[in-house]
């Protein structure tokens, strides 16, 4: 097992790096998109629910099917993969960002508005900071979900640990399958634990401060 790792260090390392890269690019892009969408959608509860529902439907489509649908349009490769992964993430991110901002105590918004904060100032200094725990939870979920789905993206030649897994399955190589899986879990676990830490810290900073009348 360990010997397999030392012998195929380069193969596994490259796949791991590719995988990490895909997850990272996806995260950055999908955060950008969801942030922009949230800014627009926060103004209308109806529209937000509709859009979240729409992405919910997309989220429920199996990734292999979605890749297949897109191949004629965007072709094989990582571009298609990232597009699909971003679309999946929108559901997790938008849901958490928007509900986080919506759940901010109405009285705080009224106090802020009443003393002359513009809706943008209110968003920046009150709504977003108070929604932070929920936003971070969304990011954590989306990294974990992306890490998993990215393995499937190897089927459309996007690279990453999926390549190792698929070739392991084809050649019945247990080591490959095991190492591919372990490295995936490592990414997900590190993201999970790291972000939980940050969440806890933010939560502590906001800690107990929500008991306010």
């Amino acid at each position, binding site marked *: 097992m360990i010997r397999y790792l030392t012998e195929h260090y380069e193969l596994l390392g490259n796949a791991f790096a590719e995988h990490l890269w895909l997850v990272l690019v996806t995260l950055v892009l999908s955060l950008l998109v969801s942030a922009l969408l949230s800014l627009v959608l926060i103004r209308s509860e109806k529209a937000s629910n509709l859009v979240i529902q729409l992405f919910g439907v997309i989220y429920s489509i199996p990734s292999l099917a979605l890749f297949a649908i897109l191949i004629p349009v965007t072709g094989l490769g990582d571009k298609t993969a990232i597009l699909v992964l971003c679309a999946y993430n929108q559901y997790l991110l938008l849901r958490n960002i928007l509900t986080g901002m919506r759940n901010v*105590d109405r*009285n*705080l918004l*009224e*106090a*802020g*508005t*009443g*003393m*002359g*904060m*513009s809706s943008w*100032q209110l968003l920046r*200094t*009150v709504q977003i*900071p*108070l929604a932070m725990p929920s936003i971070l939870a969304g990011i954590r979920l989306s990294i974990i979900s992306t890490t998993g789905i990215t393995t499937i993206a190897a089927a459309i030649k996007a690279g990453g640990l999926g390549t190792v897994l698929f070739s392991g399955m084809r050649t019945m190589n247990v080591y490959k399958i095991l190492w591919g899986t372990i490295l995936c879990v490592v990414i997900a676990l590190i993201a999970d634990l790291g972000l939980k830490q940050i969440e806890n810290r933010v939560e502590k*900073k*906001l800690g*107990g*401060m*929500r*008991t*306010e*009348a």
Partner: protein
Amino acid sequence: MKAVELVHVDQKFPNMSYKALDDVSLKIEQGEFVTILGSSGCGKTTLIKMINRLYQPDKGEIRLFDEEISKKDPVQLRRKIGYVIQQIGLFPHMTVYENIATIPRILKWDKTKIEEKVQEMLHLVGLEPKEYRNRYPAQLSGGQQQRIGLARALICDPDIMLLDEPFGAIDAINREKLQNELKSIHSKSKKTYLFVTHDIREAFKLGTRVIVMNRGKILQYDTPEEIRQNPADGFVSDLIQTMEDAPGTGNEEL
């Protein structure tokens, strides 16, 4: 000059058997301290929120210093109006200092000026700056939170102050003290105060004039003496009776 003027203002909310404001007209001179008295649900908060445009009236006009407010930019308008909301509404993720400094920071005041002003405000509401400035709202008692709310509303020296039951969570002794302090802040400032309460003693003690409301209507709007001597109707005289029946306890709630 009239600081506040409402002309035939109506406001109805869905699912209500009566109007929250029912043909309300009133004039408040600059420098007055007007208290608004009435039982729960009679429209006191609604009246207050009309003035800083948190609500738009269904009908009627509202003027501040002879200017119709529906034509003005609401954000700019609100920065000249101090507002203490009934639910206190301190930002839980900000310290006392940051809460009080919210609008000065937005207005980009000089840092030392903000620092000085916040100190001044904390002294004004009877809290030692050193001890309280870095606390979070959750680390304060209800009464202390209300004082911070008051400090936050006063810091920009607004022309009009809207205070919605600002002393609701404060015990009788401290309430008495704060009432006196507020009164002296007001008389020094020459600004116009609107103060909501359902404590009749508080209303009569603080108000240069008192508005008595019931079910969205103004029943009487006059000086405390005049209301006491010539109550407009049965509701008002019953109200005065409750105060006279229990002299000296100082905290009658409707």
